[in-house]
């Protein structure tokens, strides 16, 4: 009963959460993953069109290739910088640290590497934010942290995002980038996060509150097949890979050549699975507009 044991304190802890003053996190625009990953040069080659891009210009272009619109993967801090009104993000639920519930070989080491690589303690940060003047609960996944996969901590943070949103009657905005889907090192407990998060979404929904899900590259597996696809509005970045079984799995299972653009955001749009593809440069404004249109108290002029 190890699992239960460590959970006993959750309820009371949850209630204590808002008595302690939330910690303000400074947005750190310098921590852009693309810079960490690439070599030390001044120039970055676009992986799509091979255009050479001056790195310092990328920040102004939202980390989008100006030639072909390829959207570079960005980390949570860059995402915050692009989306959130400056200085408004308060991170929550930082007291949760991943355990190794199955004693899975190599998991602690992988976690340590991911922490080192990203500077994050887990694959998703969550908190309160203001977007174009509209307060909301916000969660952002980071693909560089174990492929944005959902373990117990990610699942719990997503769940609490909706729970706090309910408590405070706020909209929820979630950026998913869960390429690995579930985190297999946490076995069936990882699978169960799909249930837990979907249920939190539905409870929030039943209160008549808005949930805006933004599918970023890639959103696959258990992340897509739970909270990420359950938004009132599903926006996606251009070219984002979106699907349940990843393309390699589909190719192996079916031994068929995948159609062009298979599982791209454009493919998902055509097949009726998302509401809209939004260029990264417009994302803040579109999200802001949707949030604004769902504010209570907008009165008919008639």
């Amino acid at each position, binding site marked *: *009963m*190890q*699992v*239960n044991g*460590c*959970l006993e304190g959750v309820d009371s802890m949850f209630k204590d959460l808002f008595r302690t003053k939330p*910690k303000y*996190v400074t947005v750190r625009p310098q921590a852009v993953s693309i810079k960490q990953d690439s070599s030390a040069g001044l120039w970055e080659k676009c992986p799509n069109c091979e255009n050479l891009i001056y790195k310092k210009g990328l920040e102004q272009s939202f980390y989008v290739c100006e030639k072909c619109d390829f959207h570079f993967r960005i980390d949570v801090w860059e995402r915050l910088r692009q989306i959130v009104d400056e200085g408004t993000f308060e991170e929550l639920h*930082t*007291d*949760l*640290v*991943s*355990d190794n519930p*199955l004693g*899975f070989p*190599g998991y602690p080491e992988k976690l340590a590497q991911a922490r080192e690589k990203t500077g994050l*303690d887990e694959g998703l940060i969550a908190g309160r934010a203001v977007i174009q003047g509209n307060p909301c609960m916000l969660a952002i996944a980071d693909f560089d942290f174990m492929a944005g996969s959902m373990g*117990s*901590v990610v*699942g*719990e943070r997503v*769940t609490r995002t909706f729970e706090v949103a309910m408590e405070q009657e706020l909209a929820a905005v979630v950026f998913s980038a869960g390429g690995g889907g*579930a985190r*297999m090192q*946490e*076995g*069936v*407990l*990882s*699978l*169960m*996060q*799909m*249930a*837990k998060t*979907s*249920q939190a*979404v*539905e409870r929030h929904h039943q209160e008549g509150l808005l949930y805006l899900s933004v599918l970023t590259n890639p959103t*696959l*597996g*258990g992340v*897509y*097949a*739970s*909270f*990420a*696809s*359950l938004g009132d509005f599903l926006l996606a970045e251009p070219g984002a890979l*979106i*699907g*349940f*079984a990843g393309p390699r*799995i*589909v190719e192996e*299972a*079916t031994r068929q050549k995948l159609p062009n653009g298979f599982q791209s955001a454009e493919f998902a749009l055509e*097949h*009726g699975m998302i509401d809209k593809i939004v260029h990264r440069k417009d994302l803040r404004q579109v999200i802001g507009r949707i949030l604004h249109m769902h504010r209570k108290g907008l009165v008919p002029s008639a």
Partner: protein
Amino acid sequence: MRNGLFEWEKPLYELELRIEELQKFTADKDMDLSREIATLEKKAEYLRREIYQNLTAWQQVLLARHPKRPTTLDYVELIFDDFLELHGDRYYRDDPAIVGGLATFEGLPVTVIGPQKGRDTKENIRRNFGLPHPEGYRKALRLMKQAEKFQRPIVCLIDVVGAYPGIEAEERGQGVAIAQSIRHMSFLRTPIVCIITGEGGSGGALAIGIGDRILMLEHAWYSVISPEMCAQILWKDSSKAPEAAEALKLTAKDLLSMNAIDEIVPEPLGGAHKNHQEAAANVKAALRQALASILPIPLDILVEERLERFRQLGQWQEKAVAASEARK
């Protein structure tokens, strides 16, 4: 596996053959070998328990995949009466990989749903080897909503390697179908019993696995990923599936210890395929008990408890101070 027999069963099988020989000898030649036979049978009994009670995780996975293992429709036939199969999702297609319908369980009308593997090659092709498309999950959800309307209990018999990873399945929103099924099943105002009878493969199983009681057969497995795929991804070597099976903690005992299931349903010695009748009888008894325990619960409380169970699943450390300090 040869003749439906696993490698590890071979010593036992040989012993059983020997006993049979001696028995035949006794009958034919009118010789009294009862002492020898008794000794061997004692030995066989010991070996049987030794083998089947100490199966590795991987051996359990193989048992759960035994081609003669009872399928969903086998259980339906042996456990329920008057099964009336219902078809279609009302959007696109009837998916033969998931069956569902009305039945009575000891006089009580229920809705039964479950993925269906084929019992021969031809049926397997028709049923896509029991791998559902989105329309299968949509049919399941439709039948569950129908059950809810009439406050009819739902029984899900789960035996599925996973949701089908095909091009058309992706086109028609496999991920969306699973998410919506999980979401809406969670809030159904009717009692739900889920029984993992064979394979419980990831989201494809969870999509119909949100119950008030979740039972699991002794040799079934339930995991976030198949051992082969896990081994392939982690170690680029799917032949390491046995190690992955061990690491994933996917057996009924493991799941019980993690509170992911409520109860283990015993199988006939050697696995459900050795005796369908006995396996079904055990499932029936467990189902009777499960229903008896949830039917009296008011629906409001039932749903709250269902949600609460999943709300509690997950494990982490709490390091409020450490975490915030690390960030300073």
